[in-house]
Each structure stands twice: as C-alpha cells, then as structure tokens.
C-alpha cells in the first residue's frame, strides 16, 4: 500500500509515545478500538488548572495509518481547551495525512480517542 510521506514520517518517528499515570487528577485517558478489528488506540491528555491541554501521550496497536493518526492528534490537542479539542474532526485528520479511503476508519478512531479522553477527564472532575 502506498502511504503518504506524512504517514510514513509519523510512523517512523511517532510523536509523544508513552503514558501518564491514569490515576493522576489532571489526566484523561481514552482507549478505543478492539484487537479483533486490528486497531486499539490509547490517548491520554494532561489538563492544566487553566483548562488547557498541556501535554498528550499515545500508544497504538494498529496499522501505519492508525499510528500516524494518533501521533498527529497528540500534537494537535496540545494547547487547546477541552472544547477546542472536541472540535477536531476525522476529516481534518484524514486530509492532513492524505489517508486513502480504506484507512478513513483510522481517522475516525483518532477522533473517538479524543472524545473518550476528554470524557474521562470530565467524569473525574464532575464527580
């Protein structure tokens, strides 16, 4: 399969690989996908007192496009408020990485991962 240069770059040099402590107060964790489907993304955000996402980390089991999509969103969410992060759409991810049609689901999964991480953070702080 022919990948775009951007996908290959994220795949070869993934940004922000790693994990925060799930229990930390400022951390929201989202895990989406399933091993049987061939993709599992774990995205974590670290939110500052001012409500701005200070840092993000990911780990992904999946194809090159899935790894690139999650690597890209860790860069994109940094510096955004939770609401701004939720505005990141899969179409923008797919466009940035020039994903072929069969790989669009990778960008959808990355969008879902952001939503899941934000939701986890909000749940911690509303209760």
């Amino acid at each position, binding site marked *: *399969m022919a*990948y775009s240069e951007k996908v290959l770059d994220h*795949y070869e040099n*993934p940004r922000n*690989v790693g*994990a925060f402590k799930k229990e930390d107060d400022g951390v929201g964790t989202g*895990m*989406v*996908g*399933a*091993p*049987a*489907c*061939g*993709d*599992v*993304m*774990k995205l974590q955000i670290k939110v500052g007192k001012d409500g701005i996402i200070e840092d993000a980390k990911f*780990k*992904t*089991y*999946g*194809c*090159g496009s*899935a*790894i690139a999509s999650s690597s890209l969103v860790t860069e994109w969410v940094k510096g955004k408020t939770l609401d701004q992060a939720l505005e990141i759409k899969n179409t923008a991810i797919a466009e940035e990485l020039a994903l072929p*049609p*069969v790989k669009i*689901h990778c960008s*959808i*999964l990355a969008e*879902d991962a952001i939503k*899941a991480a934000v939701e986890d953070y909000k749940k911690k702080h509303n209760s």
Partner: protein
Amino acid sequence: MLKFPIYLDYSATTPVDPRVAEKMIPYLTELFGNPASRSHAFGWTAEKAVEEAREDVAALVGADPKEIIWTSGATESNNLAIKGAAHFYSGKGKHIITLKTEHKAVLDTVRELERQGFEATYLDVQENGLVDLEALKAAIRPDTVVISVMFVNNEVGVVQPIAEIGELCREKGIIFHVDAAQATGKVDIDLSKLKVDLMSFSAHKTYGPKGIGALYVRRKPRVRLEAQMHGGGHERGLRSGTLATHQIVGMGEAFRLARVEMAEENQRVRELRDRLLAGLSTIEETFVNGDMEHRVPHNLNISFAYVEGESLIMAIKDIAVSSGSACTSASLEPSYVLRALGRNDELAHSSIRFTIGRFTTVEEIDFTIELLQRKIGKLRELSPLWDMFKEGVDLDSVQWAAH
C-alpha cells in the same frame, strides 16, 4: 554485501535457476518448432525436447512419462483434475471432500462444482494443520467420488499424510487428487508407491518458469477425466493447445535439478530455517503456526502477539515475506488457513511466513533475526496491548469499544 529487499518468499515463487534459463533460451529462438509438426525437423526437435522434459518431470515423482500432462500451472491442473474427474464419474456420485486449508485453486474449483449441483464437505484440520484421518473416514459417503488434499500447505508448510489417505481412497474406490505445487523438491514423492490418482505440479515453485505446470494422471488403475479445454487434441485430448516448448524445457530442467540436488539442498535450507527459528524464538510471545515435525524444511510461519500485522510488514520492508493478514484491503480478513488452525484473528493478522530457498544465505538470515528483534521491540513499545499484557490484564476479559 546484502542486497535489499532480502527475498524470503520462496513459497510465493522462486527465481528461475540460471541453469534452467540457459537451457530454455534456444527454444525461443532457433529451436522454435511446434512439437505437433510431424513433417519436418523443426517439429521433431521440439517434440524430442518436450518428451525429455516429460521424462524429467516423471522421474522426480516416480511416475511413468505417459502419465504426465502439460498444463499452464497448478491452478489449471487442479481445475482439470477435480472438474474432470467429478464430471467423468458423476454417474457414480456427486460428493467431493476437501480441506478448509486447501489453496483457493482447489476451494474455488470445488465451489464451482457445488454451483453445478455437486455436494462438498470442507473438512476442518487439527490445531497443527494436519488432517484428522478419522474425521476424513467419517466424512466419506457412498456417493463420494473425489477427495482432494494438498501435499504441502502453502502457508504453514505442513505435510499431509498422503500415503494413508491414498490407501483409504483406493479401498473405497474414490478418486484421490493431490495438489503438490508446494511439494516438489521439498519432500520425496514416489507415485509408484503412493495410491494417488491425480497430482498437480507447478514449475515456478521449484526454480522453473511461471506459466507451466503438469498433471499426473494414473494409468494403472486407469483414471479418466473429462477435458476442460478443447481444440487440437494435444496431450491425448486431455488438454488441447500448442505446447509451450521453452516453458516445458524449463520445467523439465528445473525438476531434473531438484531430483539431483534436493537431498543436499534441503539439508542446507533446513539449517537456515532452524537458525531463523532459534533467533526469533528469543522474542517473547511468539507462536509457531503448524506442526514442526511434519513440515517442509524451508517454511517458518510465526505469529508475534500484540503487534498488528500491517504495521509489522511496514516495519520490515527490508525483507520480502508474506503476511497472514490481508488488511491492506478494506475487508480486514485474516488468513483463512491460520483461522482453520484455531488461531484468533489477532494472531492470524500478526503472522509472518518466511520461506527460505536455494539462494538464501546465512548473512540474510542473521540480518532478518536482528531486524525482527528490533522492530517487534519498537512496535511493542507503541502497543497498548503489550502494556496491558505486561500488567497481567487478560485481554479476552476486556470490554472493547468495537467500531
């Protein structure tokens, strides 16, 4: 000096041995005659070459040259054998038995016969990839006319008990077809002893050219087929079409070399395969697919848990191998062979088939081991599943948010 990518996909196809290519070339140029031309020396020369090649093919498998029919390859041989026998003997019954792990050239042929009104049983294999003889016996019905079982599986390299199945078929009067595309030059084949009625061969898996194959059709006791290709009545009417002399010469020479060199070559290839296995076994959570004892010497099929198949293939683009994953297509369907062995989808996706051959070197194997060790490590660093495994989480117990 290593040349990239390193070819470790000899079960997909092999290069034509230079000695084979050299022997073929004159038959494209000055010795171009039609073997069916009876009236001049051009034809006689070509016919002589075709008959010598037939002898070489027959000699590798313990057959009489009269029992060898030229075809375009193993796919055509499988079609001719299975459809030809099923049609000819359809008066006796319309039931066919085969295995779920057969090549598509057999499975799709049997499917087509089902469409034409035949009934088929697709037998499961055991976890090691081998057929369960008791299950095969139990599947036989009074109206079973053809059983088709491959000699060597193309993905996992396991060698089926052909001799035993042959005894069973002969006793029950059932036509026994064997797809031996992956077996020539790898295992001893002696059709003077094996009770096989029809056997398919391919040249390009054994250092011959693509586009040529053969079908063995037993003469004693005589096996009859309905031709699938009609025309000039070549090959005793079983397969019409002008013979491709240069291809046939190539197949003959390739099979002659296999006969002369296979014992020594298999020894060398087995040592390389075992070296590769030992090297890859140092990686945690790896699983060999298919029986290691009843297996061709050049095949290693191995699953690496907690890494995804396509990213694995991307990571090891310096080597040319086959993947158990077909997820470059939208269907995301893993290997049906590995699923038939009971592997779950994840392990089927993350499997790699290494097949070693005549031109593989120790340096190439050592490079491959180091590459896999490094890249699997890197992908597991990236894998949330690997973290969970290391934390002792049972992944089967997790409620995944499936998409």
